[in-house]
């Protein structure tokens, strides 16, 4: 059976009602799932003997700026058994900007989620160490949000003490 058809069939069977969209654009299979089902879905994809998506390659987010549901979190996971990379999206549907962390499934998601938190301000619930990654501790803004100015906010990042 075709790999994509196998994945879609298996996920539909188990998560039929939570699966919002299945797209296959330019040979990239993408599943859009309800936010609260991200960990169960990940658990299924990782532990199913026919799928074995054992590696999380990336976690990032999209800021749609003008849409009502502003943020979408994007995961890329890889199966060595199928030699296939799958994309999963989860729309954040309320003002809390939070989603369950997948670090319990994939350890590699730890720093990816920290980076996403640092750049977009998305809170990953049950993340073991959700601190800023690139920006200094105490920085109050999220640089990759669309309403953040390119040159930053003056005074938000302090200079060292100036020479005499």
């Amino acid at each position, binding site marked *: 059976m075709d790999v994509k058809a196998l994945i879609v069939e298996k996920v539909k069977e188990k998560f039929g009602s939570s699966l919002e969209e299945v797209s296959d654009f330019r040979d990239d299979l993408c599943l859009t799932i309800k936010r609260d089902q991200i960990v169960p879905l990940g658990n299924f994809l990782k532990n199913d003997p026919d799928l074995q998506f054992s590696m999380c390659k990336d976690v990032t987010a999209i800021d749609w700026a003008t849409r009502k549901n502003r943020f979408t979190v994007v995961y890329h996971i890889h199966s060595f058994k199928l030699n296939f990379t799958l994309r999963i999206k989860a729309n954040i549907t309320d003002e809390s900007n939070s989603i369950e962390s997948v670090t319990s499934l994939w350890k590699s998601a730890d720093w990816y989620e920290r980076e996403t938190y640092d750049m977009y301000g998305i809170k990953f619930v049950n993340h073991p160490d959700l601190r800023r990654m*690139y*920006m*200094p501790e105490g920085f109050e803004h999220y*640089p990759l949000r669309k309403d*953040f*100015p*390119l*040159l*930053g*906010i003056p005074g938000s*990042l*302090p*200079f*060292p*003490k*100036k*020479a*005499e």
Partner: protein
Amino acid sequence: MGLEAILQKDGYVTTTIDAIVSWARKSSVWPMPMGISCCAIEMISAADPKYDIARFGSEVMRFTPRQCDLMIVAGTVTYKMAQVVRRIYDQMPEPKWVIAMGACTSSGGMYRSYSVVQGIDQFLPVDVYTAGCPPRPENLLNALMTLQEKIGKTKARDFQNRPLVDLELAQN
């Protein structure tokens, strides 16, 4: 004939303390290689046999700021790194100088971005700016020669002992 003939006899020259001291200073400027990104590669090239920064007395690159006279800031300085650069600069003994090597350090360069300091002169006193992205080794040598010219004009009384409190080093 020549210098040897003159040195056979006793002799003397007249000069000023300032001339001797500034000549000695400018002839052995020890750099602190603050190599932060790609400019560092050109800075390393300046020390190789082809360009040979030793001709100008600056071959002694010290990786401790306490033995350096000159900080060559070679690379993009982010706001996070600015704290480190300033701290290392503060640990260098007086008198000290700074070369801003390349477009990034001089003006932010192509990184017109929230994370990059748009010119290190916002938190460091820069003596010589070097154009280029990255500057060729000749350009760095030219900056060094310009700096030597500047040092040659200094007087000993330009650098008076100052208490550590003024240097904001007392608490470190």
